[in-house]
């Protein structure tokens, strides 16, 4: 009897495990609204979704696969709202129209990237060209920029981040960074490295600035909410939500796409380190 029981116990456990596995695998989440796209806009999408799921009693799924994949998902009808840190490319528009999708852009926020150095560094101001030269390895010592004789440690975000994307486009004009540039994988880490390294230069979103690092004027303009929102600061860009046509008035998607206009939406955007679309 004992052996039978043992075998049977094992068998029952196995069957149970398989059944559980199958039931987990097949249990799909119902989604009323699907968001997909940029990892930069993602935190805004997440925070909005959290508020919406409570107030509108609906389920919102937010995937962060990158701007390109998000737009592709919108074109294929796999999501309702595509988050993007750039405007659509002409070929994406063409493809969308061919499939009967008419992308409409909603500008939710502005994204500004501040160039930061160690607080002990006397340099206060650089031109966009100088920053570009630093990251391309043409300037390697602070003494060439009016600072002390100290090698420059250039710190960049990883190439898959949206912050890198805007910096690469606006400051480096899409040219390659020098091989000696260090990469870190998050804004807080870029901030920490600059804070602890006297010769460092780095860049982070506006929300990460404080007194432990020094933000530089670029081309004579200090990055502030106002200069980022009106676009006079060099490293700023709009962030978009794309929908198929203008969403039906009164629908959850419509409410979601105009949520950035509300006070709550704007405080969320500011808390995530972006600049809300208001007139300062």
């Amino acid at each position: 009897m004992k052996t039978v029981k043992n075998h049977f116990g094992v068998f029952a456990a196995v069957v149970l495990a398989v059944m559980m596995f199958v039931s987990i695998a097949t249990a799909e989440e119902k989604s009323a609204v699907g968001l997909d796209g940029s990892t930069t806009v993602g935190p805004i999408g997440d925070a909005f979704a959290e508020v919406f799921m409570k107030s509108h009693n609906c389920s919102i799924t937010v995937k962060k696969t990158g701007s390109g994949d998000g737009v592709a998902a919108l074109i294929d009808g796999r999501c309702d709202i595509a988050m993007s840190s750039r405007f659509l490319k002409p070929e994406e528009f063409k493809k969308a129209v061919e499939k009967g999708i008419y992308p409409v852009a909603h500008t939710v926020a502005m994204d500004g990237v501040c160039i930061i150095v160690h607080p002990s560094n006397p340099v206060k101001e650089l031109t966009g060209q100088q920053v570009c030269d630093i990251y391309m390895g043409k300037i390697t010592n602070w003494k060439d920029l009016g600072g002390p004789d100290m090698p420059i440690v250039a710190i960049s975000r990883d190439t898959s981040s949206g912050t890198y994307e805007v910096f690469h486009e606006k400051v480096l004009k899409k040219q390659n960074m020098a091989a000696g540039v260090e990469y870190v994988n998050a804004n807080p880490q870029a901030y920490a490295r600059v804070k602890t390294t006297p010769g460092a230069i780095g860049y982070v979103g506006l929300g990460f600035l404080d007194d432990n690092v020094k933000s530089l004027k670029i081309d004579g303009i200090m990055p502030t909410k106002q200069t980022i929102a009106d676009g006079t600061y060099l490293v700023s860009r709009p962030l978009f939500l794309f929908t198929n046509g203008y969403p039906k008035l009164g629908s959850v998607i419509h409410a979601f796409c105009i949520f950035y206009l509300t006070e709550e939406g704007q405080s969320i955007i500011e808390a995530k380190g972006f600049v809300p679309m208001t007139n300062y």
Partner: protein
Amino acid sequence: MKLQEAVAPGIRMAKYSAQIAGKSKKAAAGFTRPLLLTPSEDMLGFLSGHLGRAALFLITATSVVAVFLIFYFVIRESAPFFFNKSFPAAMARIKEFFTDSGWYPAATEPRYGGLALIVGSLYVTLGSLILAVPLGLFAAIFLSDIAPFNLRQICKPVIEILAAIPSVAYGFFAVMVFAPWLQKSLGFSTGTNALNASVILAIMALPTIISVSEDAMSAIGRETREASYALGATRAETMVKVVIPAAHSGILAAVILGMMRAMGETMVVWMASGNAGRIPSPWWDLSQSIRTMTATIAGDMGETPKNSEHYYALFTVGLTLLLFTFSLNLVSEYLLGKVMKTSRGGK
């Protein structure tokens, strides 16, 4: 004879029922299990036994199949990186990947030179081994031959706890504590560099190296040591000339296991190495930032569109890494097999 055989089951059944009848009495003696089963019970036992075995075999097989599937998918996803155009183009790609050190996959004219990444992986792996192997060996010698038994029983589990600390915790320590310390006390311009990553990886590889090589040294056994003492050798001579040579294959396996740990580690190198995609010059300058294969995959994968050239290139990096660790694994399997033989007394 034949009649007896035919009758035998009947006789047994009779005994069986007699046994059941006496069961209540015998239960007090703690013997409740009948020696014979009814045919239905027998069948059930047979079926559940075999089904259970089949189910367990399936579960075991999944992990074996997983290994093959991983190889299959990595090769499938990396193949288009080479074989998308003509044969000469493929050769040019392979040549670029193994000889060029410029990794600019997102540029308008992308370059996929993996040399700096391969060299970076080798740098941190060898750097960590140079630190971890002597330390690990001395610790293993101490634990197996010198430390009192009680101390060993305390030390070994504690060392093995090192292996249980999540790598992101090590990485956090590397960035927040060790990097600023390197800058301040050694005057490096940047603290996240090859040295930082090597030191942290060495700490992570230590428990493997200590534990496995200590096992190998203990497996040599008391007889060998006593024979050596009997010939007049001192403790040190026994250690250096008898135990270590006898345990050499196990020690090598320990080193290779530690090496695989260091080579495959991602989070720590991604945080501690600085990720600058270049080969240090001069070559011995460990205060420069480097970038490894694992960190490149982890860093780039996030926003790489599927089925793009960059995506295939990352899988090619993954395949290269897989081949490195796979060959290391084969070597260590071979050496560990030798240890097993030695400990069983064979040659």
